[in-house]
């Protein structure tokens, strides 16, 4: 093999090594990640969503570890019950409850095919925090939403699933939403 051909071969092999490394990172790692289930049993007792906000998950709920991100100033938790997705998102917010509720409704409506339906109703947690709740529809699924405001934090709750399954789990989910707390709770 001539020197030129040898150099070309080495160049090709090195280039393939670069491409392979990129592929391992960009395709291989995500594939490994996808092969490992995300849902874990939700911890027993009160679960800290973030920024001091906590909630008691419904009995038997799983926790999607990849969509759950607790933090000191904000947080997200995603619980799963069968095909029902129950999300709690906590962020800093300096507006009113009405503005927070309108923001959540706007976020829901911004998704293609999603529509807020019915009116809004006041709701209060067992610790006395006032909020608003309502319903929405999406392609093939129904949804409920609730929003609470306290201590400069906005807790947005959304629950979505197919009609029958959502109807079946909604009582335990509603009970869980009522346990939402913006501070320390006695255990």
């Amino acid at each position, binding site marked *: 093999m001539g020197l030129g051909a040898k150099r070309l071969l080495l160049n090709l092999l*090195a*280039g393939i090594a670069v*491409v392979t490394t990129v592929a391992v*990172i960009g395709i291989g*790692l995500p594939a490994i990640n996808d092969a490992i289930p995300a849902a874990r049993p939700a911890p027993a007792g009160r679960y800290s969503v973030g920024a001091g906000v906590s909630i008691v998950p419904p009995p038997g709920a799983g926790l999607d570890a*990849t969509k759950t991100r607790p933090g000191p100033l904000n947080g997200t938790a995603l619980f799963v019950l069968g095909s029902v997705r129950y999300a709690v998102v906590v962020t800093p917010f300096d507006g009113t409850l009405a503005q927070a509720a309108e*923001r959540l409704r706007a976020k829901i409506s911004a998704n293609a095919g999603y529509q807020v339906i019915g009116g809004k109703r006041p709701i209060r947690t067992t610790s006395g925090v006032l909020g608003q709740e309502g319903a929405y529809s999406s392609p093939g699924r129904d949804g409920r939403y609730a929003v609470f405001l306290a201590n400069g934090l906005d807790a947005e709750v959304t629950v979505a699933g197919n009609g029958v399954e959502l109807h079946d789990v909604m009582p335990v989910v509603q009970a869980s939403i009522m346990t939402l707390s913006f501070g320390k709770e006695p255990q």
Partner: protein
Amino acid sequence: MTSERSAASAPVQPTPVGARQRYSFELPAFWLLVGLLAVGAWQLGKVFGAAFQQFPMASAVAAVLFGLYAVPFVIFARSVDFLEKEPAALVATAAAWGGLVATTTAIAGNGAVRDLLAKEVSPAFATTWGPAIAAPFIEEILKTLGVVIVVLIARRQINSVLDGAVYGAFVGLGFQVVEDFIYAVNAVGIAGRGDQAGPVIVTFFLRGFLAGLWSHTLFSALAGAGVAYFVVRRNRSRSRRLTVAILAVAGAMAFHFIWNSPLLADGFGYGAWGILLALLIKGIPALLLIYLLVRAARGQEADFYLGELAALADPNIATPRELAVLRTGSKRMAARRYAYARCGRPGRTAVRDLQRAQAKLAVDISRGGENYEACRNQVLAVRAKLIAFGHPDATTPPGHRRNPWGVVIGVATAAVVAILVAVAINALGGR
């Protein structure tokens, strides 16, 4: 005229006679690079398209701000690289790798690693330590591959450790600009107030000014310098060169880890100013180390190329004082200002042209003097202009010292930036 100085032991290995840009097209690695750039451009196009569709005004502001943000970095990097400028096409390739390939691949890789940490350890651990574990490993490998690919397609253009640092810096710059755009648009979405430019501007101050000073550009410059050491210093053993290269990449990962880690995240409990202090503590060591490295590498390169001019011993080509001026950007600018003071704009232009012609001649000599006569004549032509202006020596003024007002202005600017960044930190809730 041929160079007698390009021995295998020299820290600078000039591009050999006959090296041509078109030879890169014959290399398989070049076409693999084209493929990767195309895939990266397609992926990034989807991201940009979604951003502009959802937040057109904020996305446009982000594109303009972070595009302009790159300009001073480019000017500075090209100034550091003054004596032997890297080909614009290769520099653009390095930046394109950073912006198109490294970012889009890192998005997928980082997300996967953080998800794996959340699943295998806990979501809280992934939130706190995920950015410090995923990004340094994933991103520094991807960015270093950008310098590697430049070596594969144009090995003969990597002439010194400084060249590797320059290519690494441009890979990092491309990565930084695109990443910052994505962060800015994400901030708009998180704010939940529609298509507003406010979160973009806050992100610009935080990530552009504060993080930009000691972030991807610096980390990749360090890694790139290591790659270039492996390529250029062939008088050293392979194991030593490999060790240095690995240590350089590991160093980049370590600095990135420190920057992303939650250490000192609470700012000692003193709010925005405490957070600003913590960021300075985390970033300054990397800035200092890499500044010293680049300064040493630039000095080695200057010794080599200015030595070519000194060997001519021709004051019409370059006087000893002019050789001293050519070493640093600040002295070159001081010489141009002195010429402007004495001869106005034509004098400043002539000094600039002389400096460029001298650098071009030095590089040509190192590469075997293919265009020696033309380069020499160019220097002599500008020299004649300077003599006609009554400013024959393109140096700094007698007794020249660093301008103290420059330091004052620099400190004042840094203070203003620090205040703006502290305000930005507050606006983002202290994070």
